[in-house]
């Protein structure tokens, strides 16, 4: 489904502080699988994840999605892919403060111009699935860590993406909440979704839900 060929990512190229975060990474990620990128801090997991999710571009190399090269796409096409193909769950959740949980979940769908009532129903249904229906109208500041993460997952699912990308999803959660996250991941895989996670949490990497663990160190696959 996702193919990476000779991906290299250099930050501050040509400057005194040039840093190569990824060195010629080749990787293929299968459909309807849970793949975990595991490695210590600075191993390039998040950089690789952001390139796969079209949030940043490689310095060289190609990324293809369903046999179509997307690494050279313009912002117009990348935006479309980000909206329809990928759902993102960030490490700090990145929920927008000052608005309700429901509005946070609906936000990524606004640019698609869907019918508001239909969109609201869809967002409420997702919150119900995440057992957050009772918190729909609450401001996000009131949510606990686990609730905030589930709200972030609901937001990632609002456009029904094929691939869910989660960066260190259990980094801020205790064991109980991490297990709940893995249950959600399993349900998503059962629904045909592809999950791509970064983690160095043994609970995640050794879970039966995970199909494949890709080891990374110093910007290379080990």
């Amino acid at each position, binding site marked *: 489904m996702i193919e990476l060929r000779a991906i290299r990512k250099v930050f501050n190229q040509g400057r005194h502080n040039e840093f190569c975060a990824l060195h010629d990474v080749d990787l293929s990620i299968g459909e309807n699988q849970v793949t975990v990128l595991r490695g210590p801090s600075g191993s390039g997991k998040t950089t690789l994840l952001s390139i796969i999710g079209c949030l940043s571009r490689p310095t060289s190399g190609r990324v293809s999605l369903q046999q179509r090269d997307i690494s*050279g*796409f313009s912002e117009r096409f990348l935006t479309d892919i980000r909206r329809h193909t990928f759902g993102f769950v960030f490490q700090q959740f990145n929920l927008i403060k000052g608005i309700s949980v429901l509005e946070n979940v609906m936000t990524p769908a606004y640019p698609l111009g869907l019918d508001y009532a239909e969109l609201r129903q869809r967002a409420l249904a997702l919150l119900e699935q995440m057992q957050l229906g009772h918190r729909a109208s609450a401001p996000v500041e009131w949510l606990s860590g686990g609730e905030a993460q589930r709200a972030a997952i609901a937001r990632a699912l609002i456009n029904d993406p094929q691939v869910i990308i989660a960066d260190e999803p259990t980094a801020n959660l205790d064991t109980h909440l991490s297990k709940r996250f893995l249950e959600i991941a399993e349900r998503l895989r059962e629904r045909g979704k592809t999950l791509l996670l970064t983690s160095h949490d043994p609970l995640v990497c050794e879970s039966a839900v995970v199909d494949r663990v890709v080891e990374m160190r110093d910007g290379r696959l080990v």
Partner: protein
Amino acid sequence: MLLNPAIIALLIASLVSLLMIGWSSLFGWQVLRNWDIRSGSEGQLILERRTYLVSTLLSFVFAVQAISLLLFIFNAEQMSSLFVGAMCAVGTLNVNPYGMPTLLIKIVVFFLAAIWLVINQLDTRGYDYPLTRHKYRLLLAITPFVALEAYLQLQYFLGLDADVITSCCGSLFGGERETLATELAGLPPLPAMFGFYIIIGLTIASALWYQRRRTGGYLLAGMSALGFAASIVAIVSFLSLYIYEHPHHHCPFCVLQGEYHFQGYLLYIPLFAATALGLGVGVIQPFKQVASLREVAPVMARRLGLAALALFLFFTLWTILAIWNSNLRLIGA
């Protein structure tokens, strides 16, 4: 003369355009030599990213070129009061031998720029840079024209001398010498009118046909070019007479004056835009079968065709209105 605000604006626009196009051409040359969409090399990715910057820059430059054509004509019209013998833009443009060639080259650049913008717009709609090489080839072809235009315009403005006694439009379009201008002015009104309305009618019909059947894109482009030529002939041979209400005043520039309610702008702007859009429909045709453009190219061609149709209709109705409202009777009087 050089301190005239419009002249300063035109010279700066010309210099900036030339610099930007020159830099873009160098980039275009790199694209033509090194572009390889199958490669994931750093160089290829840099070219892919930079092509968006260059395209944006060139879109700006070509938009400036279109405005520059308008300002050049407007300025020529405004400056006519400064030259002895000049009654309108014709006199100003005839002050030295560079005026008319500058205007002609500006018109050529306008249409070439319009074609480039259409190709660029289409290219950005395809996910795999389908027309990138084509647009840079065209850019390299346009660059000499822009450079020539900048040179001619500079020579023209440097050579403006208020002491020169220039010729008015009456001598250009009504003199004894046999020139293209006097030939056009000498056309008998009735056949010229019939010829014009048949050609412009066929142009509109081809645009309508394209809207309905989605075929005949090349025909529309050809008819747009023919319609443009026929319209210029019509303005010189009979339309100007109706606007001025004078049986011997054939000037295509005096219509731009306030004395005639600036009607010329309402004739020329839709005519030039319609022709450029009609040509654009033809330009799109060979790229309809490109895989990544199969959906967007017909939609874009249809939109351009619709805009061309609307503008040709507006132009034609305006000519009819000008004749209808005129107190001059050339036929059946």
